[in-house]
């Protein structure tokens, strides 16, 4: 098992394991029930009650109704009193109307302070949509939404499944909306008529409501038959909520607003009286309001909202006066659906409001039966008490139908009501439960993985000679260790099984059906593997003296990285994660600045005080010669550059709406500067790519040509998308898709060309190679005198060539990555790409231990690698946020997914969006691998450095995952679990996938070098010799 810890890619395998663990975690974290998307049909209505036939269409028929749903945003339960709303209060008092206490879904985010230019409106709109989502979703589909509904729909947050509007449209009902256009976006194409208002200014609380009320008179008008023009009308009033946000629930403006609402109710009620069909008015709030005016919590004032049901034709409220019975928000959907004479929406789990139920006992019982059987069809377990109750009720109902006994009807009604309450509790509860067992197991697995990674990383930090396998180790039989491993695995499996039974969990993981058993066993296997790794690690880590060379900056890097994960215990640190990184990065830049200034001044003062001293202290001269005096001004300019980039995009949550440089650049009058940014960014990238060409083979001019062509493609693409002005008109008409295709072909050709030249396939063509060819095999020196190495030493410089190939491939990868990202970036963000490169280069130069440390030390390889890897991780994160990303799903740039694509296809779009979002980390990660390839002067050193870097990167990634998973478990019932914690979890998942992919790319490059050198050995090698 020792070989495992020595294997160069163990870190990669462990990262894969961590990804599997994270997937399990996500499975447990996102609620189990997903909406089936089943659509309701009239034919689904039961025609037989325990064998007794009944005419479903006739009994279900609710007659001709027109329903008005009036949603008053932020209407709190205690607002509906005679004091605030006299007319409504009067109606409730004389039992013309019923009032219920409705329990709203806690909304997810509070409304942001919106004052922003056009560009950010999309983000704001998204946030608002999510804000309304849960309440409207519950009211219109009759089921509680899950995070998956939001996450899978982002971009186009429309309700895909069944809803009241869908069934109404299917039955040919006329539906009208006046109010916030979120409704239109949630149910596109389902409205017969709509006038959506956008209300971005929270300070506006009169205009938004007037926009709704202005249509009311025409809508309430009747035609000649005294029938209204609609069947279902939705009015959404936002003014009350806006006042609440502005001035709180005790504001003097609240009362006039409520009286205005009361007037609207009066108007509708009096309008309904004139109809010759039944009119039903439902008045409800979608959420309440805190005393301070906000909402987003789960306190009673925010969650308890009134639901007033008003019916014409003299229907009396059956409930006694008082607070009224408690109903769920999901009950509105089946009620409205029934009133519209439409089937109940497919995923509905509610019941019909009691006051709407008809007095006719047969119909009454039938409706109860319909809702109960509808709920029962949604995968309820049949062995529960409420299901049995439902069956008993059904039996009683059948008895009533056949015999007509009133007692049977009474019993049936009671039983139905009891089972309905239990059913909807089960259904809503089931969809919001976490699979805690899976969460726990996933976190434990991740902990094992992170410990194993720590061991592997520390092991890799040891000096070469400490890692030599001792002779005793070699004599250990592999069979013995295999048996030991098997025993450990079995023990792990047994422990897991015991835990399963002790915890009595309902988790699928413990269901022991064949598919889940595979997962179960592989978890046990993974735990055993990590256990073995940790055990060997603890035994074999003996000498960590290399870590003694860590200096203050390294400690800052390590402590900062460790602390960053802990900061997530505060929600605002998740929302404003960029602030943490900016602060760390500033501190680091400040440290480095102070250190470099000290070194440079010291050097100068020594130099001036006397030349002899410099000669006496060659190491000072040495330290300076690496970087030169220019490092201080360079560093100051770098700080200035970062200051500029930080202003480019406001991100996070609190300051998102402040104007930033990107807004300024995107203003039409400043398009010249925006184009300047594009051109400067693209051309600088071109320059960097050509400069990187020096690491490639001897056909540098061909590489340069290809790079220039690719850059030309990028510029053409920008022209064709109107981002760049050109006097040549024909360029603008070129097809952007074709240009991007050409771009891809150029990149692919470049890689193939490089490998072909390596193999030497151009030699037969008679092209003469320059002397400086990096890919020729030769015998460097005859070492015949050296007896020790004679037998082992390779006579050919295979390793050098291999290193050259790895270098060249790494740089090609880096170049192409830069070009692709330049293509994907938003115009104002193009300058980020060269900035990452410049930052990486200067920082790598400055974080040299030989330069910064006062005393010269011998062995700084390991600490150099640690410092540089961590600093590249930091750079990646900093640029991730510079670019305008945040931990909210709203900041995902959907536009970048469609660059060079004519139509939607999931994989390319997702890959582009991911690469665009993670451009900073990807570039910084590629930079560290290029740097490693550049500075290692032997193949062995290169492999070792790559090994260490891989381990550190994997460790950092998994450490952050583990911490975050733990935090997510602790805060799983937190109010912000949807808006803050879950998106961050998704971001972490994507980040893990991408870091895995990045490390795989490096592994592929090394594999390719092995492969080609093996090829060369078998073919070329013989021919030359």
């Amino acid at each position, binding site marked *: 098992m020792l070989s495992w810890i020595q294997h160069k890619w163990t870190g990669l395998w462990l990262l894969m394991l961590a990804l599997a663990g994270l997937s399990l975690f996500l499975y447990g974290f996102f609620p189990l029930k997903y909406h089936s998307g089943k659509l309701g049909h009239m034919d689904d209505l039961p025609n037989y009650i325990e064998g007794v036939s009944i005419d479903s269409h006739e009994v279900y028929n609710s007659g001709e109704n027109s329903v008005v749903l009036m949603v008053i945003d932020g209407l709190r339960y205690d607002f509906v009193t005679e004091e605030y709303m006299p007319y409504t209060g009067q109606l409730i008092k004389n039992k013309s109307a019923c009032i219920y206490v409705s329990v709203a879904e806690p909304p997810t985010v509070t409304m942001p302070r919106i004052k922003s230019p056009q560009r950010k409106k999309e983000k704001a709109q998204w946030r608002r949509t999510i804000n309304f989502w849960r309440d409207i979703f519950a009211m219109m589909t009759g089921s509680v939404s899950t995070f998956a509904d939001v996450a899978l729909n982002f971009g186009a947050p429309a309700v895909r499944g069944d809803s009241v509007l869908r069934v109404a449209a299917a039955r040919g009902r006329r539906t009208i909306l006046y109010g916030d256009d979120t409704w239109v976006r949630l149910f596109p194409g389902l409205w017969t008529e709509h006038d959506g208002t956008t209300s971005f200014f929270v300070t506006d609380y009169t205009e938004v409501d007037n926009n709704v009320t202005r249509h009311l008179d025409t809508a309430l008008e009747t035609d000649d038959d005294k029938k209204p023009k609609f069947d279902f009308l939705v009015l959404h009033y936002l003014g009350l909520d806006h006042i609440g946000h502005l001035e709180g629930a005790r504001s003097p403006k609240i009362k006039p607003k409520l009286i205005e609402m009361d007037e609207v109710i009066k108007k509708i009620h009096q309008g309904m009286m004139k109809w010759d069909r039944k009119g039903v008015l439902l008045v409800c709030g979608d959420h309440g309001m805190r005393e301070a005016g906000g909402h987003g919590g789960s306190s009673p004032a925010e969650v308890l909202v009134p639901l007033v049901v008003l019916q014409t034709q003299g229907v009396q409220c059956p409930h006694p006066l008082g607070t009224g019975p408690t109903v769920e928000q999901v009950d509105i959907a089946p009620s409205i659906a029934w009133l519209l004479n439409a089937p109940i929406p497919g995923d509905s789990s509610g019941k019909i409001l009691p006051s709407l139920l008809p007095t006719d006992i047969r119909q009454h019982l039938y409706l109860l039966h319909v809702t109960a059987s509808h709920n029962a069809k949604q995968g309820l377990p049949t062995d529960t008490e409420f299901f049995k109750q439902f069956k008993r009720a059904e039996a009683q109902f059948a008895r009533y139908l056949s015999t007509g006994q009133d007692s049977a009807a009474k019993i049936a009604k009671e039983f139905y009501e009891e089972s309905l309450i239990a059913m909807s509790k089960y259904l809503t509860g089931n969809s919001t439960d976490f699979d805690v067992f899976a969460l726990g197991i996933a976190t434990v697995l991740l902990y094992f993985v992170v410990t194993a990674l720590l061991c592997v990383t520390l092991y890799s930090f040891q000096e070469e000679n400490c890692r030599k396998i001792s002779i005793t180790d070699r004599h250990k039989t592999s069979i013995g260790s295999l048996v030991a491993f098997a025993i450990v695995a079995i023990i792990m499996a047994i422990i897991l099984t015991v835990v399963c039974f002790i915890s009595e969990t309902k988790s699928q993981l413990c269901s022991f059906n064949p598919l889940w058993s595979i997962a179960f066993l592989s978890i046990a296997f993974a735990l055993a593997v990590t256990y073995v790794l940790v055990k060997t690690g603890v035994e074999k880590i003996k000498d960590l003296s290399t870590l003694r060379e860590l200096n203050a900056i390294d400690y800052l890097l390590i402590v900062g990285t460790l602390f960053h994960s802990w900061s997530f215990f505060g929600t605002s640190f998740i929302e404003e994660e960029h602030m943490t990184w900016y602060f760390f990065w500033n501190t680091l830049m400040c440290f480095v600045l102070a250190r470099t200034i*000290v070194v440079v001044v010291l050097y100068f003062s020594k130099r001036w005080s006397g030349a002899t001293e410099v000669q006496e202290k060659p190491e000072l001269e040495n330290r300076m010669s690496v970087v030169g005096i220019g490092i201080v001004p360079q560093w100051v300019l770098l700080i200035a550059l970062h200051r500029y980039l930080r202003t480019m995009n406001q991100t996070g949550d609190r300051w998102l709406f402040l104007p930033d440089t990107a807004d300024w650049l995107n203003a039409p009058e400043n398009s010249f500067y925006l184009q300047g940014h594009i051109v400067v960014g693209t051309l600088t990238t071109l320059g960097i790519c050509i400069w990187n060409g020096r690491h490639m083979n001897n056909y540098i001019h061909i590489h340069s040509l290809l790079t220039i062509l690719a850059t030309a493609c990028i510029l053409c693409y920008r022209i064709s998308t109107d981002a760049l002005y050109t006097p040549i008109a024909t360029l603008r008409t070129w097809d952007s898709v074709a240009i991007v295709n050409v771009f891809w072909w150029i990149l692919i050709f470049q890689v193939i060309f490089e490998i072909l030249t390596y193999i030497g396939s151009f030699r037969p063509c008679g092209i003469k190679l320059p002397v400086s060819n990096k890919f020729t095999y030769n015998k460097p020196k005859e070492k015949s005198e050296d007896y020790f190495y004679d037998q082992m030493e390779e006579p050919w410089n295979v390793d050098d060539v291999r290193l050259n190939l790895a270098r060249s491939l790494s740089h090609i990868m880096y170049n192409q990555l830069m070009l692709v990202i330049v293509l994907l970036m938003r115009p104002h963000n193009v300058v980020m790409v060269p900035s990452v490169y410049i930052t990486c280069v200067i920082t790598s130069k400055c974080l040299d231990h030989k330069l910064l440390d006062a005393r010269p030390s011998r062995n700084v390889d390991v600490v150099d690698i640690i410092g540089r890897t961590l600093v590249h991780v930091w750079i990646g994160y900093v640029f991730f946020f510079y670019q305008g990303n945040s931990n909210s799903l709203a900041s995902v740039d959907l536009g970048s997914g469609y660059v060079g694509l004519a139509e939607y296809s999931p994989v390319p779009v997702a890959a582009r969006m991911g690469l665009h979002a993670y451009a900073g980390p990807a570039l910084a990660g590629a930079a560290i691998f290029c740097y490693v390839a550049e500075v290692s002067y032997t193949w062995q050193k290169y492999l070792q450095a790559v090994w260490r870097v891989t381990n550190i990167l994997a460790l950092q990634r998994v450490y952050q995952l583990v911490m975050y998973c733990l935090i997510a478990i602790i805060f799983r019932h937190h109010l912000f679990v949807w808006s803050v914690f879950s998106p961050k979890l998704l971001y972490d998942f994507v980040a893990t996938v991408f870091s895995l992919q990045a490390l795989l790319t490096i592994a592929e490059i090394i594999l390719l070098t092995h492969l080609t050198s093996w090829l060369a050995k078998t073919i070329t090698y013989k021919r030359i010799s």
Partner: protein
Amino acid sequence: MFSLNDHLELRRVTVSSLVTCVYLPSIITVISYKGLLYSVGKASSFYILALIFVAELLKSFYLNSQNDIQQKKSKGKTKTGDLVKAFCFLLGITFCFFIGIILFGAPFLDNHEETLMLSCLLTLLALFPLVAHIGVEMAMQLLFGVKSFTRDTIIAMLVNNAVFTLCGAWLGAVVIPLDWNTPWQVWPIPCYLGAVGGYLLANVLTVLKVSLMSASTKYKYLNFFVNILNKFHISK
């Protein structure tokens, strides 16, 4: 860091630190009592800087008094020249602070007034005592680590104060992004108060340490605390 050998210096250090521990909290108390605490970033609060300036000047006179005859002699000759030089140096340092603070994240286009006040405060607390005590050239040499200063108790204290002040201002920025929506989370109040707090903390630590050191001659176990305090002082 401090040696018990030079009792005179030790006494001066203690007295000056004690004075700081008294006058700085009283200024803060008075302005917070007057309800002016959150206006420290405005130019209208310049009188605070003036007060601190006067206090620091008096302290440095005290620290410098009868220092040694040689220095006194040279001082008498080029006093005006020194003053001009020191003034220019401090102005330059203030400007450097100003640029530095903006580079490290202060608002770029507006709030220059607040940033300038903060940089004045930093100069006043961190560098002015040093310059007043040892002169411009020595201060510059100290800043760039050319000369080592560990021998001199007073200078050690001053450098320590400076480092704590800067660290305090730096750490003060941590609270700005939090979503508590309090009135003091406005630029540059946390940094301003952080700098004052850091300076105060350094002085309190000095007093504490000197008293512990003198007490530890009697009670040996107190040495443990002295060692802990020694760790706090940044000696490089």
